[in-house]
């Protein structure tokens, strides 16, 4: 049975076992449910969990391990001349074998014999059944494909058998244990609690996964490129090792121009978003009538809900050309993909981040401070400027930092609007590039893995992760500390 049918079968078995346990418990109670330790449903759950959980556990482990084991076994049987080839070549051979294995079961015996007789016809014959081969197969591949099929079907048979055995064992054990005094509720509830705890650890696992995977690949990158050169190099020229290109595969991976571009664009974005967002927040929390606020606040938040790809497209077709034409009128040379247009559009995007966080923070400033200020004769704006804002300042700084971390990690706007040239320039009218743009451009397209050109993306990702993490942790720390101050 395939994995999905197996899982489906387990789900059905779960329901059946539940019903069986329920009716057995009801039978035991003989019309007096109070004589049972738990309510009948818990007995059903107890039986169902015992029946399905062990089997499910084994099935999942098997499903993740068996492809690797089968792959090993098939590899071990490859002829010596194939095994002597490089890792990449062997991977290609294995790919062909897997494709053939897909096609073999749907072919007739006559077709199989024909392929065996003359392998160069295999592509054509397999093509008919919808299997596309990259290269002509060699005879040994057919045997290995057959072995792959045999092993896979054996593995499926074995896991089905083992799962059935475990389900039967679990069922019979739990079934015999069901008695009036069985503390079924406690058992079922502790298993449920364990499930809840497991679910909440997914967050930790994700963080660990991010750190470990990015770190691991980055370390591989730093095997071939010096950490120092990466961090302080001022030239970004990864040089894809295209055939026929002199100079070798070694490029220069200087982080500085990318980091500069990222910070430059983020700074422009904050320059747009902070005044607009902050004044909006002040107006919303201090001046606006509740009805205005009820309309304007959600509308502003729409800005945060628009997908960033839409902003990118907007920058590409509207803002970039508009700035270029305006610049031409004023005698300025503004590139169509400039730091300015990317920063401007990104600034629009992060307005709501600044405004809604600042709004919360300004609203949290105790009313007594304002009243004290009014009592001394200050006007509303004087109160806001001299009393409320200074009191809210740390929180607002936190909000701005959070918005900044959004800007640093933003991808789609800069991919479409900022350009790809890694310039180290202070001129906002020129195009610059960012860390995220380079991650995308190094990893999209058909590239060979394990070259510095692709691995550098992980080193860039690690940099990005650390920068945003530092910003976030610091900002959240400020915001939290500030909240505690007034609570």
């Amino acid at each position: 049975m395939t994995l999905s049918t197996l899982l489906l079968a387990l789900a059905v078995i779960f329901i059946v076992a539940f019903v069986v346990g329920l009716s057995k418990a009801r039978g035991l109670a003989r019309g007096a449910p109070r004589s049972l330790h738990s309510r009948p449903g818990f007995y059903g759950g107890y039986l169902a969990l015992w029946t399905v959980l062990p089997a499910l556990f084994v099935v999942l482990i098997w499903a993740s391990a068996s492809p690797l084991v089968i792959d090993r076994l098939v590899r071990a049987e490859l002829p010596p001349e194939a095994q002597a080839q490089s890792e990449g070549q062997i991977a290609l051979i294995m790919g062909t074998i897997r494709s053939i294995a897909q096609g073999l079961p749907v072919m007739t015996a006559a077709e199989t014999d024909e392929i065996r007789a003359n392998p160069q016809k295999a592509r054509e014959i397999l093509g008919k059944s919808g299997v596309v081969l990259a290269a002509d197969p060699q005879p040994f591949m057919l045997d290995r494909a057959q072995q792959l099929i045999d092993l896979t079907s054996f593995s499926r048979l074995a896991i089905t058998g083992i799962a059935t055995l475990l389900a039967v064992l679990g069922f019979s054990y739990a079934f015999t244990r069901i008695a009036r005094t069985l503390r079924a509720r406690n058992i079922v509830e502790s298993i449920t609690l364990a499930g809840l705890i497991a679910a909440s650890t997914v967050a930790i696992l994700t963080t660990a996964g991010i750190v470990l995977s990015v770190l691991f690949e980055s370390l591989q990158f730093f095997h071939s490129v010096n950490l120092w050169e990466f961090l302080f190099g001022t030239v970004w020229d990864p040089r894809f090792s295209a055939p026929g290109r002199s100079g070798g595969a070694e490029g220069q991976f200087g982080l500085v121009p990318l980091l500069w571009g990222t910070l430059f664009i983020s700074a422009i974005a904050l320059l747009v978003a902070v005044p607009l967002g902050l004044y909006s927040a002040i107006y919303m929390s201090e001046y606006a009538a509740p009805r205005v606020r009820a309309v304007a606040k959600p509308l502003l938040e729409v800005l945060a809900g628009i997908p960033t790809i839409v902003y990118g497209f907007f920058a590409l077709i509207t803002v970039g050309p508009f700035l270029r034409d305006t610049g031409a009128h004023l005698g300025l040379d503004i590139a169509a993909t400039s730091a300015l247009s990317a920063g401007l559009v990104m600034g629009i995007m992060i307005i709501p981040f600044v405004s809604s966080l600042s709004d919360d923070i300004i609203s949290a400033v105790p009313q007594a401070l304002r009243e004290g200020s009014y009592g001394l004769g200050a006007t509303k704006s004087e109160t806001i400027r001299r009393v409320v804002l200074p009191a809210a300042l740390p929180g607002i700084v936190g909000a701005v930092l959070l918005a900044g971390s959004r800007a640093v990690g933003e991808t789609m706007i800069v991919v479409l609007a900022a350009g790809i040239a890694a310039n180290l320039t202070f001129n906002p009218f020129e195009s610059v590039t960012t860390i995220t743009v380079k991650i995308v451009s190094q990893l999209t397209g058909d590239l060979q893995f394990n070259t510095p050109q692709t691995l550098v993306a992980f080193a860039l990702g690690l940099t990005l992760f650390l920068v945003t993490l530092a910003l976030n942790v610091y900002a959240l720390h400020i915001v939290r500390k500030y909240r505690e101050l007034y609570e």
Partner: protein
Amino acid sequence: MTIAATPSDIQEARIRRADHAAALAKKRHAAEWRFKMYGVIAIAISLAFLVILFTTIVRNGYSAFMQSAIRLDVNFDASEIDPSGQRNSQDLWNANYPKLASNALYSVLGVNPDDRLARRKANELLSRGIDTQLRKIVLADPSIIGQTRQVWVLAHGNVDAFLKGAISRDTPEENRQLNNQQVAWIDKLTADGLLAKTFNSGLFTFGASSQPETAGLGVAIIGSFFMMFTVLALAVPLGVAAALYLQEFAPKNRFTDLIEVNINNLAAVPSIVFGLLGLAVFINFLGLPRSASLVGGLVLTLMTLPTIIIATRAAINAVPPSIREAALGVGASKMQTVFHHVLPLAMPGILTGTIIGLAKALGETAPLLMIGMVAFVVDYPRTPLESATALPVQIYMWATEAERGFVERTAGATIVLLAFMLIMNAVAIVLRQRFARKW
């Protein structure tokens, strides 16, 4: 010498001070008004950006929902499609369908079949997608062979652009993608009612194509659907379970603190980093196929999880303690209290949070680029393991195409994406208002 202040002096000073105070007050009130106006202006500018954004998209994109088509009486000539007469599927597949449409077009336009240049120019009015279109008709009903049928065939992207005004009649001929002869033909066809704009169903059904008129969102919509389904099936149970544990059961200790810090930080990790995680773990380590919507769904699940956990915790927190105390009071266990009483009451809030999280996931692009969803996929994926694209990724791919026709398509796709998100958010708002409960 002493100066004795006369009463008139004092009076004068008083007036001066009063004048000064009045002037000062006026200044302060002006400052007050200005300050308030800054706020109004800031909000106005922000909302103006919103309006400009939407109008740009709609202005560029509304025309994508109409597509030019030519009505032709196509003769499904048996000798052309199936010379052997055996209805062999291989023959039907390989037949020269564009020729059928071309022949019909020549007779309508009065093109001499021996004039090679005129033939080529006439053929340039037809989309290259005609091949597929006519083949589909024949394969669906082979009995049509030998008959003449009226078919609306797709016009070429340039014809479409001309009808929509993107290619101007006033452009000098040498700079125009259509020559004068072709423009005359287009006018003739339009006048005869044979060339018209029809609703562009292809935008929703076609797969990837290098021609704008045959490029559509079919694959992307299916891919996005698979991904949303994966997120729904994984992120909601996991997120709700995690939130229940943290909010109702977790003791206050190092471990739960660690989980909380992690969730808060994950919510702020750049999305592209999740893409790197997906590439390293799901594709390189676990060996799942690239470009598969399952992998996309898994990555988006991890991204959406913090949103759902945070929303669920807020919803659970809003259920008043009296409910829990009442349930515990009549003898329910902690687990029964949570599952029978707290969770159902928190459900509307959880649903709202889930839908908002899903809408966010639907618009996410960057992580999908990392796991290779920028593939040129022509055929519909049947399972989540096959190559697919997603709505926002399709927008990205079209946005980077050079041809003019793709700008319209990109904006059209953006409208579709925004419409989906609008619907989801509207549902969330309705749910919130419908089931909102004041305790």
